[in-house]
C-alpha cells in the first residue's frame, strides 16, 4: 500500500514535470483566456446587455460554469496554479543536473570526451610546456581567462566564459513564479474602489466595486481640482490636490494627475474622472436699487445659504439652486443634475419693513415676487461645484510582479544573448607519436557563431606558436573540424 502510494505520487510528479503536461496546460490557458475575450464578461458588461446577448438557458449555463467571469473563477485560478506547479516541478526535476554542471565545471576532459567532442582541432607542438604557454598567451590576447589544471599524470588548460548562462532558464522560470505569486497575492488580498470628493471635503469611505463601503485608516481631503483643455476643447489635463489626514493632522499631500497617482501606506489614489456636481459654488450678480431713479449697481458674490448685506437695512440670502429647472403646477422642480437650465432662489429681507421677498432668477411667473423687491438683480457669473473621481487600489503583490519583470528581463537576456563557452587545451601524443595540442570547445547556444570564435582561437594559438614551430618542424599540419567527430590531424594537407 505504501509502495503503491509512493509510486502513484511519483507518477503524478513525473506527469507534472513533463514538458507535455506543460504544453497541454498552456494550450488550455490559451483556449480559456481566448474564450474570455469573446464571451461577454460579467463585471464589465451590464446585466441588461448580457440578457440581450444570450438566450436565458444559455446565460444560465454560462453563469453556472463561470464562463461569464472566467478570469475570476476558481477553476481558471486553479489552472494557473497548475501551470505554476508544472513550472516548479519541471524546474525542480531538471535543476540538480544544471546545478551540478554549474557548480562543478568539467575542467579536464578525458579521452572518451575528447573523441566525441564535435568542435576540436590539433596543432603539433615541440613540447607540452611550449604549447600550453602559447595557448595561454593566445587566450589572453582574445580576452579569455585561463586556468591550469594539474592532475597527477597530466596537466591541461581550461577556459570558459559566462557560466551563469546555464542557469538562465531557471532565472526566467523563477521570475515567472514571482510574477504569478504577486498576481495571486493581489487577487486574494488586493481590492479596488472609488472615492468621489469635492474641493474642501474629506472622506475615509471607499465605495467598492460591489457597492459596499470600506473604511480606510486615514482620510483623503481634496484641496482643489480642475481641468485644462486644448484650444479645440479636448481635455489636456485633469488634476487634484489631495492631502492625507490622519488623526486630524495632515501627514502627506500631492497634486495628482492622470498617470501620476498619490501613494500612501500601500493605497494608491488615481485621477480617474472629473466633473461637475450640479451644486452651486458661487453666484456673482449685480444688485441695483429698484426705487430711486438710477442707483449704482454693486457686484456681490453669494454662496449657498450665504447672506450678504446690500445696504444698512437690506440683505439678500441665497436659498435654492436648481441646475435644470422645470415649472409644473405652480412649483419648481429639478429635471436633472446637469447645469443646463439653472434657476436660483434668493430671499431679500428688509429689517425695517419686516418683509422678506422671494426673488427668482430667471423670473418665474406666478412664483416670484421680483417686482416687490427693493433691488433688481442681474446675474453675471455662475460657478458650479466640481468633483474629482479617484480610483483607489490596494495591490500588495505588485512588488513581486515588478521584481519578477526585472528578473525576467535579466533572465531572457542571459538565455538568448549570453553564451556559455568552454575551451580545453590538452597536450597529447597522437597516433604517430608526435606531441600535439588538442583543442576542444563547446557553446550552449548559437553554435555557428561559436565555430567562428573557435577558429579564431585556434588561429591565434598557431600565431603564438609560429616562430617555435617554424624552427622545429616546419610542418603546418592543422585541421579544424567543424562537425565531424574525428578530429585527427590530416598531415600534408
Amino acid at each position, binding site marked *: 500500500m505504501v509502495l503503491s502510494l509512493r509510486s502513484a505520487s511519483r507518477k503524478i510528479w513525473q506527469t507534472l514535470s513533463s514538458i507535455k503536461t506543460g*504544453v497541454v496546460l498552456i494550450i488550455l490557458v*490559451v483556449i480559456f483566456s*481566448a474564450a474570455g475575450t469573446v464571451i461577454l464578461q460579467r463585471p464589465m458588461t451590464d446585466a441588461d446587455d448580457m440578457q440581450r446577448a444570450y438566450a436565458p438557458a444559455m446565460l444560465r449555463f454560462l453563469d453556472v460554469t463561470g464562463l461569464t467571469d472566467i478570469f475570476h473563477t476558481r477553476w481558471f485560478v486553479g489552472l494557473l496554479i497548475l501551470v505554476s506547479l508544472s513550472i516548479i516541478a519541471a524546474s525542480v526535476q531538471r535543476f540538480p543536473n544544471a546545478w551540478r554542471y554549474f557548480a562543478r565545471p568539467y575542467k579536464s576532459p578525458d579521452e572518451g570526451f575528447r573523441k566525441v567532442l564535435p568542435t576540436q582541432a590539433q596543432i603539433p607542438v615541440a613540447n607540452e610546456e611550449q604549447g600550453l604557454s602559447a595557448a595561454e598567451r593566445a587566450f589572453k590576447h582574445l580576452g579569455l581567462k585561463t586556468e591550469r589544471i594539474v592532475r597527477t599524470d597530466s596537466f591541461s588548460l581550461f577556459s570558459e566564459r559566462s557560466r551563469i548562462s546555464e542557469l538562465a532558464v531557471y532565472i526566467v522560470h523563477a521570475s515567472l513564479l514571482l510574477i504569478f505569486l504577486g498576481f495571486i497575492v493581489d487577487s486574494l488580498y488586493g481590492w479596488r474602489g472609488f472615492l468621489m470628493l469635492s474641493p474642501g471635503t474629506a472622506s475615509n469611505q471607499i465605495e467598492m466595486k460591489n457597492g459596499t463601503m470600506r473604511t480606510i485608516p486615514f482620510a483623503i481631503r481634496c484641496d482643489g481640482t480642475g481641468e485644462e483643455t486644448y484650444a479645440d476643447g479636448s481635455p489636456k489635463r485633469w488634476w487634484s490636490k489631495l492631502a492625507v489626514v490622519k488623526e486630524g493632522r495632515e501627514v502627506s499631500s500631492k497634486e495628482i494627475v*492622470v*498617470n501620476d497617482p498619490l501613494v500612501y501606506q500601500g493605497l494608491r489614489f488615481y485621477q480617474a474622472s472629473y466633473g461637475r456636481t450640479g451644486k452651486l459654488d458661487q453666484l456673482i450678480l449685480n444688485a441695483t436699487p429698484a426705487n430711486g431713479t438710477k442707483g449704482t449697481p454693486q457686484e456681490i458674490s453669494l454662496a449657498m445659504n450665504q447672506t450678504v448685506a446690500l445696504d444698512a437695512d437690506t440683505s439678500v440670502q441665497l436659498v435654492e439652486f436648481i441646475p435644470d429647472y422645470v415649472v409644473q403646477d405652480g412649483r419648481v422642480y429639478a429635471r436633472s443634475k446637469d447645469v443646463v437650465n439653472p434657476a436660483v432662489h434668493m430671499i431679500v429681507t428688509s429689517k425695517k419693513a419686516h418683509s422678506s421677498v422671494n426673488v427668482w432668477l430667471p423670473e418665474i411667473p406666478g412664483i416670484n415676487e421680483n417686482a416687490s423687491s427693493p433691488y433688481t438683480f442681474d446675474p453675471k457669473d455662475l460657478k458650479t461645484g466640481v468633483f474629482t473621481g479617484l480610483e483607489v*487600489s490596494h*495591490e500588495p503583490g*505588485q512588488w513581486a510582479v*515588478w521584481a519578477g519583470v526585472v528578473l525576467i*528581463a535579466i533572465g531572457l537576456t542571459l538565455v538568448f544573448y549570453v553564451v556559455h563557452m568552454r575551451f580545453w587545451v590538452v597536450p597529447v601524443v597522437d597516433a604517430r607519436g608526435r606531441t600535439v595540442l588538442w583543442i576542444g570547445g563547446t557553446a550552449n547556444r548559437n553554435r555557428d557563431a561559436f565555430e567562428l570564435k573557435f577558429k579564431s582561437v585556434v588561429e591565434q594559438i598557431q600565431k603564438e606558436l609560429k616562430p617555435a614551430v617554424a624552427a622545429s618542424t616546419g610542418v603546418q599540419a592543422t585541421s579544424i573540424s567543424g562537425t565531424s567527430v574525428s578530429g585527427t590531424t590530416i598531415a600534408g594537407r
Partner: protein
Amino acid sequence: MASEKVEQHPATGTTLVVMVGLGMAFLLFIAFLNVVKSGNILSEANLLYAALVFYAGAGALYLGFGVTGTDAYIKFASLMTWAGLLANTGAVAHRWYEAGHPPFASIYEMLLSFVWTLAALTLIAEKRYGVKVIGTVTMPVAIVGVILMQLLPSEVRPLVPALQSTWLHVHVTLAMLAYAACALSFALAMMFLIQDQVKTELFLAATSIFTVGIYAAVLTRFEKWGGLNVIAWDAENKTEVFISRGVRLFVTIPDLGWLMLLVFAAVLAPLLLYILSRVKRNEGLLAVADRAVFISILLQSLALVFFLLRVRGGQYPSLDADGLYATSLAASPFILSALVGGIFANLLYLLLLWRRADLERLLPDADALDRITYKTICIAFPLLTLMIAAGAYWANRAWGSYWNWDPKETWAAITWLVYAGYLHMRITRGWRGRRAAYFAILGFAVVMFTFFGVTYLLPGLHAYA
C-alpha cells in the same frame, strides 16, 4: 519598343532600371512643380511624397528582381530604399518635432513609424543576412502603407491625459519592434517552406484560409438586406461619430454587403476546390483552383474599388440614429487594410505559382532560413515580454491596475504563450524545420489577430490602437 528590348536582353536589366528611373524623374518633376507653387520644400507631405516615389521605384525593381532574378536590379533597388528611408526619416523627425512626442499616437503616426521600420528591416535583412528577395514582399507593403497614410487624417492631435506618459512611448516602441520581428520571422518561415519543397497547393490553401478569414471578419458587419456597416465620420471635426462615450455610430452602406458576400464566395471557391482535390485525389482540380484564385483577385479588386468609391462619397442612414451621415476611409482603416492585405496575399501566391523555380534559386538555403527564423524569434520574444511589462506598468499608473484581463492584454499574453511554446518545443524537443516553421506562422497569425482582430472585433479599454 521597350518591351522588345527586354526580350532581347533579359539578363542585363538595364531597361527596367532606365524605365523606373525615368518614371521617378517624372514624378519628382511633378512634385517639384508643386513645391515651387507652395514654396515649402521640407514639409512632411513633401517628404512623404518623396519617400513614396523612392519606395515605388525600389518596389518595382525588387519585383523585377523577384520575377526575373536579375542581380543588377538589387543595387539600384537598395539605393532607392536608402533614399526612401532618408525621406521617411525626415518625415518622422518633422512629425516628432511638430507634435512634440514620438509618432505613435494615431493610426497615421503608427503607419509612419511602421513603414520606416519596414524599410530599415529590409535593408538589414538584405545587407546583413543576404535575403535579397525580401524587398519584393516588404516594399509593396511599404507603398500601400504610405498610400494609406494619404487617406488618413494627418493633423497633429493633442494627446488625451491617459496617453501623456513616457511609458506609452516605451510600450509602443517595443510593440512596434516586437511585431516587426514577428513579421520578419513569419516571412522567413514562409521562405523556409518554399525552400523545403512544401507543395505549392499548400500555400494555396493557406492563402485561401487567410483571405476567407478576412472576408468572414468583414462580413461580421453585414447588415440585413445587403448592407455593410461602417463607422460614421464627422468630416468637420475629423473624428468618428460617437453616440455616447466610447460607442461609435455605425452607418449602413446599402448593397455593399452583397458584394462582400459574393467576394466571400469567390475566395472560398479555391479553398473548396483544394479540399475537393485532396478528397478525390484529383490533381486536375488544382488547376481549376488556381484559376479561381485569379478570378477571386479580380473580384477582390472590384470590392476594393467599390468600397473606396462608396465610402468616399455619399451619405448613409443609420439604424441607431435619424438622418444621414457621411463616412470616410479614415473611419474604416481595418476594413481597408484587410481588403488590401487579401489582394496582396493572393498576388504573392501567384508569384510563387509562376516563379517558384526562380524563387528557390534566389533564396538562402533551407537550413540557413530555419536558423534565421529561430534567431528572429529569439529577438522578438524578449521584446514581446518587455512590451507587455511596459504596458502593464503604464496601465498601473493610468488605471490603477497592472492587469485588467482586457481583450488586448489577454491576447498579448496568448501571443507570448504561443512563442513560449515555440521556444520550448525547439529547445527541449528539438523541433526544427517544417514543424517549427508552422509554429512560427501560427505565432504571427496570433500577432495579427492581437493587432487588428482584437481592435476590430473585440473592443475594450485599449481604444487607442
